[in-house]
């Protein structure tokens, strides 16, 4: 128990919190965009895994991490477009379309990895991102190592929060996006192209989900593992509800869950006389409890799950 009550432990924990929150921030911001436009994208889990794979393979063959990120984002946009074909153009069940995309993207990830890499005894690895200490700021005691000694992906994720908030609430495009999510008939009547807006929202969402996936292979681990996303896409779906479809609150939600993730990893490492799996369960359990607490007051976008067809 003594290990827990040191300053070092807390600095390590809070620093890891921010790190573990990174993919959650990115994916949840993405999901917020498409849900604000009226589309629940359950393709999130598969899109993240495929993003992780696309990033890994691209970096593995080119040696360039940024190309890896671009590949992840493009793959996410493509899955977003596919979701658009099913949920926007064809107006089919968003639940089943999204699950189909997750199954397809997951299957494609496993298939592609095995077909290209095979199953060697030692899985191939890449040189990942190093943490980036911001000169000056990172030497501030306590705050420095927590906030300013992170992966560049973490900084990008945090900067994207106010940007997403600005786009969603302060721009014409954001207004249109929210309008098609609340009341597509009315939006259509004032000349907003509902289909185009929803497609763009899905592409932004998919790109962010793919980007989120790249964190796993390019920073968190240095290899591709089949179960590496591990339900964080589903946690993100819950986080959107928790955050009431508001990017700023997404940040706090992601930090809360990242914190639990970081805490359980540390508690595992300390080695209590409890099975480590019980720690692994904590983030999932917390997600369900939080959902119970917020479900009653959740104000879903008005046309979420409802396909729009022009009469």
């Amino acid at each position, binding site marked *: 128990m003594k290990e827990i009550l040191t300053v070092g432990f807390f600095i390590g924990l809070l620093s890891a919190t921010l790190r573990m929150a990174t993919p959650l921030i990115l994916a949840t911001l993405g999901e917020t965009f498409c849900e604000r436009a009226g589309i629940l994208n*359950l393709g999130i889990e*598969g899109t993240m895994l495929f993003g992780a794979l696309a990033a890994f393979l691209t970096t593995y063959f080119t040696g360039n991490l940024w190309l890896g990120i671009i590949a992840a984002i493009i793959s996410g946009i493509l899955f977003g477009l596919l979701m658009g074909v*099913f949920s926007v153009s*064809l107006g*089919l*069940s968003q*639940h*089943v*379309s999204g*699950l*189909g*995309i*997750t*199954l*397809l*993207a*997951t*299957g*494609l990830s*496993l*298939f592609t990895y*095995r*077909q290209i890499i095979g199953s060697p005894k030692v899985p191939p690895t890449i040189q990942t991102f190093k943490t980036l200490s911001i000169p000056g700021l990172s030497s501030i005691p306590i705050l420095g190592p927590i906030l300013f000694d992170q992966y560049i992906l973490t900084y990008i994720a945090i900067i994207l929060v106010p940007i997403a908030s600005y786009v969603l609430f302060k721009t014409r495009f954001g207004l249109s996006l929210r309008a098609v999510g609340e009341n597509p008939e009315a939006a259509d009547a004032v000349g907003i192209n509902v289909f185009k807006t929803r497609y763009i929202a899905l592409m932004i969402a998919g790109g962010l989900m793919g980007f989120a996936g790249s964190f796993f292979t390019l920073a968190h681990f240095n290899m591709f593992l089949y179960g590496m996303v*591990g*339900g964080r896409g*589903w*946690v993100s*779906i*819950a986080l959107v*509800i928790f955050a009431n479809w508001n990017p700023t609150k997404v940040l706090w939600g992601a930090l809360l869950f990242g914190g639990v993730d970081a805490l359980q990893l540390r508690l595992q490492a300390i080695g209590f006389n409890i*099975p*480590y*799996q*019980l720690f*692994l*369960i904590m983030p*999932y*359990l917390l*997600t*369900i409890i939080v*959902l*119970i607490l917020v*479900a*009653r007051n959740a104000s879903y976008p008005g046309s979420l799950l409802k396909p729009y*067809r022009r009469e």
Partner: protein
Amino acid sequence: MRFPKFRLEKRPSPPTWLRIAIPFIAIGISFLFSAIIILLAGRNPISAFYAIFYGALGTRLGFMETLVKATPLILTGIAVSLAFTAKFWNIGAEGQLYAGALAATWLGISHFSLPSPIYIFLMIVVGFIAGSLWALIPGFLKARFKVDDVVTTLLMNYIMIYMVSAILEGPWRDPVTSWPQSIMIAKNAEYPKLFARSRVHFGLIVSIIAIIVVYVIIKHTKLGFRIRATGANAKAAYFLGINTIKTIILTAVISGGIAGLAGVGEVAGLHFHLTENISPGYGYSGIVIAMLGGLHPIGVMLAAFFFGIIITGAEYMSRATGVTSFIADVIQGITLLVMLAMLLLYEYRIRRVE
């Protein structure tokens, strides 16, 4: 030059033959898409598909293995199908399967000296109850607190699988091999074999009984009417005086219980002990099977048999052609999406606008 314009028009009454034809068309189109993916991998799709069907149906052994794989798939398929009929989005069949397997193993490794039929009956009962309880939680949360069922059922899969893992690496760890797997269940708790020189077991009978029971519930009982009404329009059902909360909870319990039976079968009929990976995703395959089967019990049975072929054949194909067996997962994803798109043909027809 002007392009002809088309629009969707609701069909007044969709013909039955179309309902039967659509899954077959969907399978055909899915094969086409899968062929493209195999081509992109630099392999020959014709020989890959031939190997799948030869591996699954071409030999007695292959055919028997197809039935072995179809056994849990029928159960998860009908479990999901029943839940979806009530629009209870049970994506948790995987966790419910493990709950059933866990409970059955607990009974089986206790090595009671009971007559085999009674022991097997008890295995089925505890497996059903365990799956039911695991589905009751999200069912209750949805019905009572409007908590999103997709997310809760999904997250509970992870919780159950970690719990199984904790138990197998802890108290139930095999003391001889020290692998994370339980000891063997009692001989008198094992499902009997149906055919000599095969692994086909009593679970197949359980699956077929489940299909019949669900068919009767849906078509011929008041509960079935309530389930269909709740699924078609929960608000309207509520104003008709149907207790939709009770209906959803009951649906969840039956659905979860049936998925639990899939876990019982894998333990009592096939592996005779519990491991961390007794299911390679049968619960998720159940979603594809339910949709391909058109949420109809007979359709579900045929769809489960079809995916039994794909999963069994893919293993053979991977050895024979070098295309990895993960193509089975790709085919499942594609089939779900194609089948979903095909349903549009059932509800609408394409009309040319003059």
